[in-house]
């Protein structure tokens, strides 16, 4: 019977084919991942999809720039030593696109097949949450450089190998609320427009709670939830316009954010309402005159245009701008920060000139204070695994004559003022009135 599924002989071959394939795969890579005496870092960021342009590729570029400069020993002090602890760095870059399940698989492949010594990566919060337990299981030092979920150290309560050198999104929104309260005391009505997924939902929740806490008289007049990547915000803009808010809060990022600003600007949405964009910094080079001056922007930390003047920033900003024809935005800063944290940790604990072990890295990085282009980073939360840094907000300023964009009226809030104590739920902490926050 021709169409019958009971073909007998080939079935025996099925196992042979599958094993042969798998073996071939195994052999071919173990040869690739031969120990070449270099320090291998796996870099995972978005190389495709909507997050590639604003986040993934700037971060990957920053990694390339930093690793090349480190290998050439061209960085200013205290990072003048070549590579990591004198050992040349090699990177393995992987695309973060494709979802959390795929990323857990690829994380294992990085560690077990490609034999990387450390991993730096992950922009998506879902990926971070999914990867976190695997990090501890496989015991490879891993630094989350960007993802903003507050649940990372809820997922892994006693981290050993897992670190985050960036801040979570709670601090962004607490800082945004404080900035608004200080600079726009007259705000009475607030509208929200968020991408309809975890980031947008959490961001609005935290901002709304914090603003209610600081300015109890504010009222929410509209909440809009367009889907991620929608691109067309006509109806949402109308709905917000009709509600006449004083303030529009949005955690939009990347192309969606820029589209919202273009469409809203062309329809006069921001003539009477000021927008606060917690992830607005990545758009600063694209906004031009389309975004009104006075729009409040955040950079998820002291990054990009908010970065302070120091020797490292004096090297990084011009070098990046020269190589990639655009100034570095916050994802680029955060990537360099993670790499420098790794280097600082290794050089603190490893024997001079020796290949740093996983133990070296985790001992060195826990509780470490190190320098980055964004200033001093303290790994002082979550048992020394979570960075504490200040967060800045400022107003967008575009000079039509020079065509240059900048931020003015910058206010910087210390980490201690924005972060809940270890182990407490951020929402409860905000509702309780920020107990223990130290604001200057």
């Amino acid at each position, binding site marked *: *019977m*021709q*169409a*019958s599924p009971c073909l007998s002989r080939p079935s025996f071959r099925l196992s042979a084919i599958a094993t042969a394939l798998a073996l071939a795969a195994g052999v071919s890579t173990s040869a690739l991942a031969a120990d070449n005496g270099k320090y291998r870092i796996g870099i995972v960021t978005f190389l495709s999809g909507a997050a590639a342009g604003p986040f993934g590729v700037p971060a990957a570029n920053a990694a390339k720039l930093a690793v090349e400069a480190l290998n050439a020993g061209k960085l200013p002090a205290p990072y003048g030593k070549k590579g990591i602890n004198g050992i040349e760095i090699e990177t393995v870059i992987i695309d973060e696109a494709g979802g959390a399940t795929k990323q857990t698989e690829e994380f294992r492949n990085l560690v077990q097949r490609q034999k990387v010594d450390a991993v730096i990566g992950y922009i998506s919060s879902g990926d971070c949450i999914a990867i976190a337990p695997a990090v501890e299981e496989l015991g490879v030092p891993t630094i989350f450089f960007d993802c903003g979920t507050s649940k990372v150290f809820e997922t892994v309560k006693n981290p050993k190998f897992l670190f985050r050198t960036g801040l979570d999104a709670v601090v962004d929104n607490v800082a945004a609320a404080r900035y608004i309260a200080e600079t726009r005391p007259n705000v009475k009505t607030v509208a929200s427009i968020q991408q309809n997924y975890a980031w947008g939902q959490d961001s609005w929740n935290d901002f709304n709670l914090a603003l209610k806490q600081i300015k109890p008289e504010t009222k929410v007049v509209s909440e809009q939830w367009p889907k991620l990547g929608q691109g067309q915000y006509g109806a949402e803009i109308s709905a917000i316009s009709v509600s006449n808010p004083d303030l529009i809060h949005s955690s939009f990022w990347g192309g969606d954010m820029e589209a919202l600003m273009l469409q809203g600007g062309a329809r006069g949405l921001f003539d009477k309402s000021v927008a606060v964009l917690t992830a607005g910094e990545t758009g600063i080079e694209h906004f031009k005159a389309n975004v009104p001056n006075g729009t409040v922007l955040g950079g998820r930390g002291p990054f990009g245009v908010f970065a302070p003047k120091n020797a490292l920033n004096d090297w990084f900003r011009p070098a990046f701008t020269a190589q990639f024809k655009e100034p570095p935005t916050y994802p680029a800063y955060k990537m360099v920060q993670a790499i420098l944290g790794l280097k600082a940790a290794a050089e603190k604990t490893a024997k001079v000139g020796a290949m740093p072990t996983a133990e070296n890295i985790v001992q060195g990085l826990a509780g470490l204070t190190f320098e980055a282009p964004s200033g001093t980073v303290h790994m002082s939360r979550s048992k020394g695994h979570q960075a504490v840094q200040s967060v800045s907000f400022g107003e967008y300023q575009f000079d039509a004559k020079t065509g240059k964009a900048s931020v003015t009226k910058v206010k910087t809030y210390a980490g201690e003022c924005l972060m809940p104590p270890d182990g407490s739920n951020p929402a409860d902490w905000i509702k309780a009135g920020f107990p223990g926050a130290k604001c200057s």
Partner: protein
Amino acid sequence: MTAILETRGLTRTFGAVVAANDLNVSIGQGEIVGVIGSNGAGKTTFINMVTGYLPPSSGDILFDGQSVIGRQPREITRLGMARSFQVAQLFPKLTVLENALVSLVAAEGPRPSIFRPLDTPERRERADAIFAEFGVTRYRDALVSTVPQGARKLVDIAMALVSRPRMLLLDEPTSGVSSEEKFALMDTVIAVVRQHGVTVLFVEHDMEIVARYVTRLMAFYSGEIIADGPPRSVLGDARVQELVVGHHLDINAVLGAAA
């Protein structure tokens, strides 16, 4: 003789077209009834309504004294009325044997097993017997799509008969079959149905076939039955010759050729 199939005031319209107009038919057990009529006369519409494929606009259909209006084709099949199709309705990418096996398993009941295999020695044996009866054994393992038209029609009819129906409706059994093959095909079919005492109604264009095999003939014209009776009288009817056959028919020649 009790009626196995009876229709009362059966009517079907397609928009302004009346494909069946107040048809009152009664067919007795064991009759072999032929249906003739030009294209669009309502022959296939009649079969489609009787077998549940097409709901009538009004009227009633009784099979074995029981109304079958609103029943699905599968239910009517289970009551004992099977049919074949103008264009053989088979499973083209399955082999002839597999086609037969499927119809055998269908004849066993409406819920095929999800555990026991379709292909059992018992069913194969039965299938082989059917192939022998219909003379299609040599196509047994060929894909239906590769089998000649005549053999396909035979398989189509054989599959209808697998369920041991009490009545069989054949929609143009010889259309698409070469003139050399058509008598052999009909001989086979009629021998089988006679053997099992199956009542047959068949639609046919070929007057020689009609004349040779039927015991009763109905002529359809524009949704109505214009003549019903023994083939000699129907074929001899002037209106039938004008409206259905389209030319003068030498009845004796036709019947003589058939005999």
